[in-house]
C-alpha cells in the first residue's frame, strides 16, 4: 500500500507492506540510513538489525526505528506514520550546545535558516495566537 511517512522535518510517500516494510532504497530516502550486510549504516556507524527485520532487499523500518530508540507511531489505518527523533539524539545535540539548525518560512513564505545568522548574537523567542 501507499504510505505517508512523516519525519521531524519531512514528508515521504512510499510503497510499504505489513506496517513499515519497504525497499531498502526507500528506507534510505526516509531515514538517511543505508542497508548493508552489517545492518543499517549512516556515515561510519552501523546498527545491527535482527534477522526478522530484513528480507532480501526489504527492511522493516518500524523495527529499525525502535532499535534506534525512536518512536514510530501510526494512525488507525496504518497508512500515515510519524517517525520521531530518538531522545538520545536530541539530548546529545543539545548537550553539545550547538544550537540545532532549522529552516522555517517567514510570513511571506520565504524560507529562513538559523545558521544564516552565524556571527551575530541571536535571540530566538516563541509566541502563539492561542
Amino acid at each position: 500500500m501507499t504510505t505517508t511517512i512523516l519525519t521531524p522535518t519531512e514528508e515521504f510517500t512510499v510503497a510499504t507492506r505489513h506496517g513499515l516494510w519497504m525497499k531498502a532504497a526507500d528506507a534510505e530516502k526516509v531515514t538517511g540510513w543505508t542497508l548493508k550486510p552489517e545492518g543499517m549504516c549512516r556515515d561510519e556507524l552501523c546498527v545491527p538489525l535482527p534477522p526478522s527485520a530484513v528480507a532480501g532487499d526489504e527492511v522493516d523500518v518500524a523495527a529499525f526505528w525502535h532499535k534506534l530508540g525512536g518512536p514510530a507511531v501510526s494512525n488507525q489505518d496504518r497508512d500515515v506514520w510519524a517517525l520521531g527523533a530518538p531522545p538520545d539524539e536530541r539530548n546529545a545535540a543539545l548537550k553539545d550546545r550547538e544550537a540545532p539548525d532549522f529552516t522555517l518560512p517567514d510570513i511571506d513564505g520565504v524560507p529562513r535558516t538559523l545558521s544564516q545568522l552565524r556571527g551575530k548574537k541571536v535571540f530566538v523567542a516563541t509566541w502563539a495566537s492561542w
Partner: protein
Amino acid sequence: MWQQLYGELKDKNFMVVAVAEESRGADHARQWIDAAKSEYWQLIDVEHRLEDLYNLVNVPQAIWIDEGGKIVRPPETAGSTDHFRRMDLKTRTMSPEDQAARQAAREAYLNAVRAWVTTGKYALDEGEVRERLPEVTPAIAEARARFRLGVWLRLHGNTVEGDRQMDEASALHPESWSMWRQAADLDEVGKASGPGFWQRVQALGEKPYYPPPKL
C-alpha cells in the same frame, strides 16, 4: 513584541527570531505580525518543529545563541510571569500591584538581554547550560511524534483521529502547554484560554505556569 529591543540593539550584531507556534498557519498569525511592524524575522512553525528541536513546553520561551552558534542560555520563560493567574476572570484585569510587578519582571528580563548583547553578561558557561537543559525522555519523544501526526491528520481533514493523537500526545507530555493549547485552539479558536485551560492552571497548585528565568 520585541521591536523596541531589536531597534535598540540591531547595530550591535544582534538579531531577533520570533517563531509563531501556529498549526493553523501563517494567515492566522498575520494580524499580530502586521501589528508588530517588526524588522526582525517572523517565522511560522505549523508543526512546532522548534519545540521538538529545543524541547520547549510553552510560549513565550527564548533561547540565546552566541556568534559561534552555541546555546548560551537554554530555553526559559521570556518575560512573562504568573501574575495572570490572580486576575479577575470577569473583567480580565489584574490588580495595579500585579501589573506593576509583571512589568518589572519583563523589564528585568529585557535588561538582561541588553546586557548580554552589549557586554556578554548573563551568558552561561558550558556546565551551567548543560545543567539547565531539560531532558528529552522517551515519553516526550513519542508525544512529539503523535503531535506531528495529529497536526497532519487534522490538516488533511481527519479531525477525529487527529484529536485523538493530540490528546495522547498531551497525556504523554502533560508539562507541554503548547501541545495542549494548540490542540484546543485547533478544535475551536478561544478554547486554549477557556474553562479547560483555567482548570489545568488551577491544578498546578504551587507549581509555576511560567517558571521565572534564573538570571
